C-alpha cells in the first residue's frame, strides 16, 4: 500500500474562489468609494446635488435646445427678439459656429487663396506627427524639415508676393491660423533663445551675466500685455523714420521674447540639476565649451526639464490669446469680432462662440500636457532603479 492511499492528500490546487459578494462588484465599489463613512456619504450627496444642478442644464443648453442649423440670427433668437424660438428659450447657437467656421480658421484670408494656409497646415501635421512618435527613425531630417524648411515654405506661401502668388497682408490673417503661427514661432524661437539666455545667466563674464539676468527678471516680472504694448508702441520709436515693422511681426517678437525669458528659467533649473562632475568630466576630456554643452550637459538638462518646457509651451499657447487686445484677430479675437455681426447677434451668440473657442484651446493644451506626461514616462525608464 502506498502512502497516498492511506491518507487523503490533495494532489492538485483547488480552483480559485471568487471573492465574497461583499468585497466585489458594484455594491462594494459604491460602499468603498462613495459611502465609506457618514462624512463620505454627505459629501457624495452634496456632489450629486451639484452635478444634478450643473450637468443636465448644461447638456440641455449645449445639445438638446441648441439651434444646429440656420442661415441667420432668427434661429438663435426668441420671438420677442425677432427670431423663431419660443419666448424664454436659451440654447447654444451652433448654426453661428457652423456658418463662421472657415472664418474662425483663417480669419479674413481671401477665399481663393485659402489653399495656401491649408497646404501649410497639412505639411505641418505631416511633419509633426512622425516627430512626435518616438519609434519612427530619421528624427534629424524630420526636425530640419519641420523647424528649418517648413518656416521658409510658410514664409513664401502665407504672405505671398513672390513666385507669382498674390500678396496677402497680415492684417487679413486671423483665426486659429494666427494662434497656431504665433505659438509655433514662439515655441521655435523661445527654446534656443531661452537656452542661450540661461547659459548667459550662468556665464562667468559679468556683463553678459548681468544683461541676461536683467532681461529675464524684467520680462518675467511684468505682464505679457505690457510687453505686447511695448512691442506695438515702443518698437516703432526705436527704429529710424520710415522703417516700420508689420504689426503681426511685432506681436511675434513680443510673444517670443516673453516666452524666452520663462524658458530661460526652466532651462536654468535643468542646468543647475546636472552634477558638477559632468561639467568637470567634459572639461577633463578637453571638450570646448560648446562641445561640452551640446554633447554632455544640455541633453541631460533638457531631458530633466521636459515637463517645465511643455508647461511653458502651454502657457505660451494660452497667452497668444492676448494679441486680440492689441487689435489682432487670433481665434479668440475673431470669435469676439463676430459677436457684433448684425446677421448673427443674439443673446446666446457670445456664449456659444466662447464655448467653441474654449473647447479648441482646451483640446490643444490638454493634448500637449498629455503628450508631455507620455514623454516623461518614456524617458524616465533609463533612470528607474
Amino acid at each position, binding site marked *: 500500500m502506498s502512502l497516498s492511499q492511506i491518507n487523503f492528500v490533495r494532489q492538485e490546487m483547488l480552483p480559485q474562489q471568487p471573492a465574497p459578494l461583499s468585497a466585489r462588484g458594484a455594491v462594494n465599489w459604491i460602499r468603498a468609494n462613495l459611502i465609506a463613512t457618514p462624512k463620505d456619504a454627505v459629501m457624495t450627496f452634496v456632489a450629486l446635488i451639484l452635478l444634478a444642478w450643473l450637468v443636465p442644464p448644461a447638456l440641455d443648453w449645449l445639445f438638446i435646445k441648441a439651434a444646429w442649423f440656420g442661415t441667420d440670427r432668427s434661429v438663435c433668437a426668441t420671438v420677442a427678439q425677432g427670431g423663431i424660438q419660443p419666448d424664454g428659450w436659451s440654447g447654444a447657437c451652433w448654426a453661428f459656429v457652423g456658418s463662421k467656421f472657415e472664418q474662425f480658421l483663417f480669419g479674413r484670408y481671401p477665399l481663393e487663396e485659402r489653399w495656401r494656409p491649408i497646404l501649410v497646415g497639412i505639411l505641418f501635421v505631416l511633419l509633426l506627427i512622425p516627430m512626435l512618435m518616438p519609434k519612427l527613425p530619421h528624427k534629424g531630417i524630420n526636425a530640419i524639415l519641420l523647424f528649418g524648411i517648413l518656416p521658409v515654405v510658410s514664409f513664401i506661401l502665407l504672405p505671398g508676393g513672390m513666385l507669382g502668388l498674390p500678396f496677402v497682408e497680415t492684417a487679413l490673417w486671423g483665426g486659429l491660423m494666427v494662434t497656431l503661427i504665433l505659438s509655433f514661432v514662439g515655441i521655435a524661437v523661445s527654446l534656443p533663445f531661452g537656452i542661450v539666455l540661461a547659459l548667459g545667466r550662468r556665464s562667468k563674464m559679468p556683463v553678459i551675466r548681468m544683461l541676461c539676468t536683467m532681461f529675464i*527678471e524684467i520680462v518675467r516680472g511684468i505682464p505679457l500685455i505690457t510687453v505686447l504694448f511695448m512691442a506695438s508702441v515702443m518698437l516703432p520709436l526705436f527704429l529710424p*523714420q520710415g522703417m516700420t515693422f508689420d504689426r503681426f511681426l511685432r506681436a511675434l517678437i513680443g510673444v517670443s521674447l516673453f516666452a524666452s525669458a520663462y524658458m530661460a528659467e526652466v532651462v536654468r533649473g535643468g542646468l543647475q540639476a546636472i552634477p558638477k562632475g559632468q561639467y568637470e568630466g567634459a572639461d577633463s576630456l578637453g571638450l570646448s565649451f560648446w562641445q561640452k554643452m551640446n554633447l554632455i550637459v544640455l541633453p541631460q538638462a533638457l531631458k530633466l526639464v521636459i515637463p517645465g518646457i511643455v508647461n511653458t509651451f502651454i502657457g505660451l499657447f494660452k497667452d497668444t490669446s492676448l494679441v486680440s487686445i492689441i487689435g489682432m484677430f487670433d481665434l479668440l479675437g475673431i470669435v469676439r469680432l463676430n459677436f457684433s455681426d448684425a446677421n448673427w447677434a443674439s443673446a446666446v451668440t457670445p456664449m456659444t462662440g466662447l464655448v467653441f473657442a474654449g473647447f479648441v484651446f482646451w483640446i490643444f493644451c490638454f493634448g500637449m500636457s498629455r503628450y508631455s506626461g507620455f514623454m516623461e514616462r518614456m524617458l524616465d525608464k533609463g533612470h528607474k532603479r
Partner: protein
Amino acid sequence: MIALALLIYWIVDNTVENLRRANIASGFGFLNGRAGFDPGQKLIQFTSDSTYGRALLVGFTNTMLVAVTGIFTATILGFIVGIGRMSNNWLISRLSLAYVELFRNIPPLLVIFFWYSGVLAVLPQARDAISLPFTMYLSNRGLAFPSPVFGDWAFLTFVAFIIAIVASVVLARWSSKRQMATGQTFPVLRSIAALVIGLPLLVFLATGAPLSFDYPVAGKFNLTGGSVVGPEFMSLFLALSFYTAAFIAEIVRAGIRGVSKGQTEAAHALGIRPSLTTRLVVVPQAMRIIIPPLTSQYLNLTKNSSLAIAVGYADLVALGGTILNQTGQSIEIVTIWIIVYLSLSLLTSVFMNWFNAKMALVER
C-alpha cells in the same frame, strides 16, 4: 560687446530723433496734466479735473483691489479643490480633477470674456434685476448690495477688534510658553474665537449698534442707493479666482503628497490624535512645500489682472493705456508699468527668500 553698445546707441539715437519729430517732451512732467476722463470704478477721490498721476494711482489701487480679493477667493477655492483631489471619495476626487483640467487648459482671457459677455452681459436689465438674499440685486449693471453706513461711535468697535487681536496674540504666546514649562494645555482656539468675536460685539451693542445699511432700491430704470460692483470687476474677479484656483489646487495636492507617509504613521504611533496629526505634523511640513509656488501663483494672478483692459476695468494697465493714447508718453508709461510690477515681484521674492530661510529644513 562693441556691437551691443553700437546697437544701444543706434536705438537711443533713433528714439530721440523720433520723439523730437513727434514733438513729445520726454520726462514725467505730464503726470501733473489734467486727465479729463472718468475711470469708472475708483477707490480714492477722483474727478475729471484730477491729474494723470492721480489717475495712475486710481489704476494701481484698482489693480490691488482685484488682486487681493482674487487671491483671497482663489486660495480658498484652490485649497478646497486640492484637498478634494486627495479625497477617498471617488466622486469628489473626479469632480476636482475635472475642475482642474478644465480651467488649467483654457486661456484666462477667455474665462474673463465668458463671464463678461457670456454670463453677466445677458443678465436682465436693472429694472427687473434678479433679487438675491440680503436685498442684493443682480443685473447687467453689476451686483448691487447694501452699503454699510457707520454711526458716530462705530470706530470704537474697530478699536475693540484690534485690541482683541492683540490680546489673542499675547494669549497664544503665554499659553505656548506655559505648555512648554508645565505641560498644561489651554483651550487657545476657543478663547481666541470668543475674544475676537465677543469683545467687538459687546462694544458694538454697548455703543448702541451704530450701524445702518443703505439698501439698493429697484427704481424704474436703475437701482438707486447701496453700492454697486460693476460687471467689469466681477468678471475679472471671478475669472482670475477660478483660473488661479486650478493651479493652487495642484500645488496643494503636491504639497500634501510631499509629506511622507512615515510622518503620519509616526505621529499615530506616538498616540497623537488624527486631527492633531494633521494640524501639527502634516500641515506645517506641507506648507513648506506649498508656500513658495503659492506666492508665485499670487504674483501670476496680480500680473494677469492686467487683462482688465480687455473688459474695460480701470486697472493700472488700462488707465496707463488711455493716458498713453492721450499724451503719447509711451516710454514713461511703460517705465511706470515696469517699475510697479517689477517692485511687486521683487517684494514677493524678498518675502520668499525670508520664508525659505525661516522654514528651511534644519538637518543635523
